[in-house]
């Protein structure tokens, strides 16, 4: 019995346990996703997050301990973002020709993402801090956290809202765009990327490499534009100077 206690003490202090658990649960989520015949509802990220959250609650493990192990995976978001230059390079001719539509779609989409998220939450009685944390929700995690900090939201809450946004976009956006009779993979990918950043992009790569390239392009562009727009919009709100 004591030996089990000793082992747990070792595991609880080492990054090994939660790093390997994150990978194992992700692989299990992917297996389930494939077993379900690729049904969007069995989103591997959503499955993995639910399972890990339950594990943390059951073992009474604080999030900080979990993140001590999982941070090595989180860190790879940086180089993965740099790597998005490669699909962009491979599809550059197409991007160049669609320059004007991309610019128009980006501007409309970025404004819509910020205003509709804050507007709906405000109508339903969300607190000012929740509204400000929601504003950058369509932007990729590290950038969204920076924006939230700047405008008075909670960066760690924003991180969670960003992931949920990505899962919702990955699950529902492809069907929605099909319903709207959008047939061009470039348009599909770009719209999914603007609305649902990297998790949407992972889904867009399943549609086609072209859709993935445009989604990746959208991540970068929307991050830039939201970083400029969100502080301006937040400054117009009556409660922007709250503590």
């Amino acid at each position: 019995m004591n030996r089990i206690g000793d082992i747990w003490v070792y595991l609880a202090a080492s990054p090994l346990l939660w790093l390997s658990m994150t990978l194992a649960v992700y692989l299990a989520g992917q297996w389930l996703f494939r077993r379900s015949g690729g049904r969007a509802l069995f989103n591997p990220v959503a499955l993995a997050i639910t399972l890990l959250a339950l594990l943390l609650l059951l073992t009474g493990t604080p999030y900080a301990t979990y993140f001590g192990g999982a941070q090595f995976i989180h860190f790879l978001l940086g180089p993965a973002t740099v790597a998005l230059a490669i699909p962009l390079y491979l599809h550059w001719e197409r991007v160049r020709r669609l320059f004007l539509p991309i610019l128009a779609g980006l501007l409309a989409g970025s404004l819509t993402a910020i205003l509709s998220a804050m507007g709906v939450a405000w109508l339903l009685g969300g607190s000012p801090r929740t509204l400000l944390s929601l504003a950058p929700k369509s932007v990729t995690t590290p950038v969204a956290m920076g924006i939230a900090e700047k405008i008075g939201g909670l960066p760690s809450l924003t991180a969670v809202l960003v992931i949920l946004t990505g899962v919702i976009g990955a699950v529902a956006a492809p069907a929605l765009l099909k319903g709207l009779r959008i047939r061009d993979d470039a348009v599909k990918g770009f719209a999914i990327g603007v609305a649902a950043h990297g998790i949407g992009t992972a889904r867009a790569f399943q549609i086609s490499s072209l859709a993935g390239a445009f989604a990746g392009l959208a991540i970068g562009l929307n991050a830039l534009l939201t970083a400029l727009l969100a502080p301006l919009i937040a400054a117009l709100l009556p409660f922007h100077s709250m503590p």
Partner: protein
Amino acid sequence: MIGALAILLMLQLVGEVAVRWSGAPLPGPVVGMVLLFLALRWRQALPDALRATAETLLSHLSLLFIPAGVGIVQYGSLLAREWLAVVAALVLSTLITAAVTALVMQAVIRRYPGARQDE
């Protein structure tokens, strides 16, 4: 593979330093992405090792979001209070954003035939 990873990390490093140096409101990795894109355009070639590493990383992009997402365990009480506002805002806003982006893009493509795809 290690060489390719080193290139990606180094460009991210240059991006982060450039952003802090200039005070630009840009994310460092996005600057790194622009730099890598410019380098590829300039060289007009994509090394196989870089392509393979990038494809591996991007095919598991969704894995990289799991650690931040598990942070939801910290917000049980906030979500208990404001779950309706949060869930409605996320679902509606995400779907409206995807629809608006796609419809505006499609409308501009129709208006400017030069941008239309040649298929």
